[in-house]
């Protein structure tokens, strides 16, 4: 695991150059395009503001016979990387060969908390039809360039490793949901955490099969070591049960808990954390979802059915097949528009989830966080529009 804890690398350019590139002078000289628009032409790993990364190595995590292989990518970010707290994720932009389109997806960071400019890892499962995850797992090579955001998200470890303030930590994860929890446990152990003052860590993970279990060796080593971390791995039809959880962590509802996994697991755990009387969810439970509620699209030729949600205003309506602009206006919203025929881009909005159909081309799309022109786009099922 030492590769995960690499010393901070000094970016290609020294700190003085970095300060110069980020200066107001540099901005004024490169206006209106900005410094990065020039640097990227010279070397994609030079950046003053943006973050990019090169893949340093690709490590296959599972045996490889399964249909959804998992790989860990070690990334060397540009010196602009500000580091991350355990549990955070990063938006990764990938230009897929053949289309030149950049697709952006979120991935949790699996390595321990990183310092500015420091290497970190992503652990990714290749979904059967997943465009980005398949590419990253199957085709990414050392040297592949990725576009990144800074680390983001509040699903983080609040505990200061040196002075733990809370009695116990509990992680409940399923499938690829293990990654943020792994980052937290790795951070704790790297920074010398031990549970001998009664501050135990319980790690409960659900995987489809032992062959499907990622980080198996490391988890076994953690379980065997004398460090106060209990590891419980469950496979196949060993579903989550409240009864079992109570046996492992009797006061689980009052224990700081991080939950990340598929929808089924999340539902079961949420039920367990709801107060039996008031049905209120324990505030100690923190959750992260990897998958937004995916909407069902109408099959071609089928009647459009679904709900359009304008998430900013909270307005919703049944999908009628009319353009989203018209639907929004019917609800009394006043989105910006110009030509109303798809040429001026005034009405561009982000569709955060769901399926839409371009009324000019008939093309359907279910990509998350996609920019659409709402004057020539209609809902083709449930969809969420940032409006």
């Amino acid at each position: 695991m030492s590769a995960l804890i690499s010393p901070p690398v000094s970016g290609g350019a020294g700190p003085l150059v970095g300060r110069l590139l980020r200066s107001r002078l540099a901005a004024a000289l490169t206006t209106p395009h900005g410094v990065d628009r020039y640097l990227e032409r010279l070397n994609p790993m030079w950046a003053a503001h943006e973050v990019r990364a090169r893949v340093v190595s690709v490590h296959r995590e599972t045996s490889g016979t399964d249909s959804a292989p998992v790989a860990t990518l070690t990334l060397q970010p540009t010196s602009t990387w500000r580091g991350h707290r355990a549990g955070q994720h990063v938006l990764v932009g990938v230009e897929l060969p053949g289309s030149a389109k950049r697709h952006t997806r979120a991935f949790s960071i699996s390595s321990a908390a990183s310092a500015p400019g420091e290497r970190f890892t992503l652990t990714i499962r290749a979904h059967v039809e997943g465009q980005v995850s398949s590419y990253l797992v199957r085709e990414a090579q050392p040297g592949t360039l990725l576009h990144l955001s800074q680390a983001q998200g509040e699903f983080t470890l609040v505990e200061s490793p040196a002075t733990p303030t809370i009695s116990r930590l509990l992680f409940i994860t399923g499938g690829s949901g293990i990654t943020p929890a792994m980052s937290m446990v790795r951070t704790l152990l790297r920074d010398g955490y031990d549970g001998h003052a009664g501050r135990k860590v319980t790690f409960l993970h659900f995987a489809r099969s032992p062959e499907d279990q990622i980080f198996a060796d490391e988890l076994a080593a953690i379980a065997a070591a004398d460090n106060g971390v209990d590891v419980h791995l469950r496979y196949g039809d060993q579903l989550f049960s409240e009864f079992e959880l109570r046996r492992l962590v009797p006061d689980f509802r009052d224990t700081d808990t991080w939950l990340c996994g598929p929808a089924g697991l999340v539902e079961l755990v949420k039920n367990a954390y709801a107060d039996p009387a008031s049905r209120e969810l324990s505030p100690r439970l923190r959750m992260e979802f990897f998958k937004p509620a995916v909407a069902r699209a109408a099959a071609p030729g089928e009647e459009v059915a679904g709900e359009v949600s304008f998430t900013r205003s909270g307005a919703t309506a049944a999908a009628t097949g009319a353009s989203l602009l018209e639907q929004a206006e019917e609800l009394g919203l006043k989105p910006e528009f110009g030509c109303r025929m798809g040429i001026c881009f005034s009405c561009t909005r982000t569709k955060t989830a769901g399926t839409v159909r371009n009324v000019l081309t008939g093309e359907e799309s279910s990509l998350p966080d996609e920019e659409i022109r709402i004057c020539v786009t209609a809902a083709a099922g449930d969809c969420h529009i940032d409006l």
Partner: protein
Amino acid sequence: MSTETLSTPLADEKYHGLTAEQIEQLGTELDALRQRVLADLGEADAAYLRKVVTTQRKMEIAGRALFYLPVVGWLPAVACLSVSKILDNMEIGHNVMHGQYDFLGDPAFNSRMFDWDTVCPGEQWKYSHNYIHHTFTNIVGKDRDVGYGILRMDPDQKWHPYYLGNPLYAFLLMTFFEWGVALHDLEVENIVSGKRKLSDNKPLYPGLIRKIRRQAVKDYVLFPALTGPLFPLTFAGNAVANLVRNVWAFNIIFCGHFPAGVASFSEEETANETRGHWYLRQMLGSANIKGGKLMHLMSGNLSHQIEHHLFPDLPARRYPELAVEVQEICERYGLPYNTGRLHQQLWSVFKKICRYSLPGGDAKVAPVRGPGTVTEDSLAA
């Protein structure tokens, strides 16, 4: 197919005798063309754009650097910087801000984030150009690009002694074109005529001032200052480069919209327009410039103004290939396809600027250059 023509005789004449059905069919054909290119967009378009951007950046850096060579460096410096500014404005800025490369998902080439190297804020230009000009192309009274609110370019614009200065205004607009474009949105002529209130412009000032300040500081303070004792030379060189870009951009744009044979429209004629009519108006209201690859690159492919107006959001590098088919469609429908070499189009524009400085002028219908009448056979061809 019915031979019934459009209800208004004027419109019928202007639309070259096409029936409503024929116009719809025209729209369908153009939609199909558009769809074919859309489906084919990909790596080649991205690679082309990146190559142009790299060339532009190199030209800019070379230009800025050559100013350090006194005497011998000055002229090449101005040349490099002029080319850089032209590429930045035409093949990159204009086209990226049309959303032509939004499909790449690259924030560097996203129409909502891009801004160009002129004093006109991209945000403001996208409204007046992408929306107003491209939606209401050549509708007198709605498209403020007809004469830019300064010139009389169409017989339908009422004459006034002010227009005696037409040639002079055109010359000034050419010289200060980027400023003209920046101030375009303030609609000064509408304020003078009382159609717009001065206070309506208030929201535009902060963006405008910010952009002007940044552009001026860069070209007229910082880069000259960085060349030390050569300050005056660098200052002058930057001014000349901006001037060259202005003159070039003005000429390309005027050739695309104002040569003889370009039709204009009234609000009544276009009141109940269909998609087919919109296409037809774009075709009749634009003109191309013939030329080689360099001409197309330096004009941002606005040498294919007709194709640009039909398909403003398709990457401009596709216009030459689209032109072949658009021209063929025009022939089949008996529609004019207005094109000529740069000097021909310029001369034609020049004559128009002079002619309309004086009262009158015939409301001329664009000459028919294809077959005189459209028959079922010619459409089926």
